[in-house]
């Protein structure tokens, strides 16, 4: 097998005295779509945020494309990386948030162009050309000059996806990208994610959309209590779970 895009080895994380991650192990192959499901408070968002070092892990190791995230190994110790080195790693990892987090003082187009221009140092013309293409890809070419406040939730989330893609990431993280949306707007966002998966993007998706996980996911992990309880092909995990906890969770959400 090729080198995994994401590899987590015994990842631990606490907030003060609250242990949130108790040794998470998982792997995501390149071009694979991994869906993470689990009850509220099980540490799904926290784990996702560890992958791009928005949260520091306390113990264990996390690799993205073979590279240790947030730390460098030197002389048998893990040394925390400086801010710039961490920022450098994050360039390759796109993230989409539950609450969109678009920049409200910029138009859709400016949102998408911002990081390529300021972080990658692309020329405005190049960045603009790419941004126009991406907004077209998510079906928003007509709204590129609108501000986030003038867009619906579904449109905002699609701009957010385009914004993350503009950095040409090799991995995309989604944290419940449709949970803040009205039911009739969920479909348009899932469609964009589906076509992204078809194009071969490696994706880690925390979601409550079991239908999406079953259809688009190549693998599903069920997390509870800060550990991976069960993982495997969506058909197995979501249809014939082996663990009682998984079955109990699924009976509640399906």
């Amino acid at each position, binding site marked *: 097998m090729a080198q995994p895009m994401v590899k987590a080895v015994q990842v631990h994380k606490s907030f003060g005295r609250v242990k949130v991650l108790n040794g998470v192990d998982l792997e995501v192959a390149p071009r694979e779509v991994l869906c993470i499901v689990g009850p509220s408070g099980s540490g799904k968002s926290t784990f996702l945020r560890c992958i*791009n070092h*928005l949260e520091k892990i306390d113990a264990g190791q996390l690799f993205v494309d073979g590279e240790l995230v947030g730390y460098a190994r030197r002389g048998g110790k893990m040394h925390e990386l400086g*801010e*710039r080195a961490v*920022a*450098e790693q*994050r*360039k390759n*990892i*796109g*993230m989409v*948030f539950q*609450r969109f*987090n*678009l*920049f*409200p*003082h*910029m*138009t859709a187009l400016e949102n998408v162009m*911002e*990081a390529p221009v*300021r*972080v*990658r140092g692309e020329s405005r013309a190049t960045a603009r050309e790419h941004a126009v293409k991406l907004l077209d890809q998510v079906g928003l070419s007509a709204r590129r000059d609108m*501000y*986030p*406040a*003038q867009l619906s939730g579904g449109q905002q989330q699609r701009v957010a996806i385009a*914004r*993350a893609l503009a*950095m040409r990431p090799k991995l995309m993280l989604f944290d419940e990208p449709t949970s803040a949306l009205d039911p009739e707007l969920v479909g348009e966002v899932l469609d964009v994610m589906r076509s992204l998966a078809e194009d071969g993007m490696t994706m880690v998706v925390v979601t409550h959309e079991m239908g999406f996980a079953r259809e688009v996911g190549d693998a599903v992990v069920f997390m509870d209590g800060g550990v991976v309880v069960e993982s495997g092909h969506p058909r197995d995990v979501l249809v014939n779970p082996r663990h009682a906890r998984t079955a109990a969770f699924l009976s509640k959400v399906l």
Partner: protein
Amino acid sequence: MTQAAESVESMPTVRRRQPGRWVAAAVVCVLLAMLVNTFVTNERFQWDVVFDWFTSDRILAGLGRTIQLTVISMLIGIVLGLVLAVMRLSDNPLLSGVAWAYIWLFRGTPVFVQLLFWGFISALYPRLSLGVPFGPEFTSFSANELISPFVAAILGLGLNEAAYMAEIARAGILSVDRGQAEAAQALGMTRGLALRRIVLPQAMRVIVPPTGNQAIGMLKTTSLVAVLAYPELLYSAQLIYSANYQTIPLLITASLWYLLITSVLSVGQFFVERHFARGSVISAGATDRRGSLRRLAARLPGRRP
């Protein structure tokens, strides 16, 4: 029933009568008339003297110094205040402690006293020198020469202002959703870049209105600089009336100038606020009420398309 239904569309509405408003308006009119009357008939106002001096060289020179003091002190206050606000919000306990102590000291003592301290700094440090701490000295200056009344005024006003601006800027930065900085960092921005490009432009909406207030306050606080014998607007007026005894007219002259500049600052604040409202729901639509000002602004140079 049918009759009511058919005539609803054509029925005019009658506004409620508000007799209280008419009474209040009448009272206000009478009071205004009395005020205007006394302005005009009380000869001790000496409006001719007021307007003789209004554009005199000495008053205008004082006005220029007042504006200069206001602008420079506010600039120092805003820049240093931003730095202090960022320090105060830093995870580094030393940085945030230093910022806290600065604010505690400069907000906790009267600006008048601070001005006096800077004015008398040479009593404390007769010579100021540049060199390696506890090591050799490169040059040194006499404090009296270096800290002129103007410099003392700028230091006193600017450093005091920074303490207030720090709290205003901190409130502004805290008003921006944490998700904004996170989204910026997730895109590979460093904290500094995220602050400059993403957080501060949004914080400005909260920072600008109280800063306008501070600028107007500063314009008037510069009059305290008279204590350093620096001839800004008020002290210039005082110098003139101590010679010609036209005390009241000259105080009115100065007051009219303060009022005029305050008004100009308020208009400036409007435009700055509108600039930073970019993308908010108000600027995105529903601006009819401000339509005329928008059109005025559209003709001003330097606007983004």
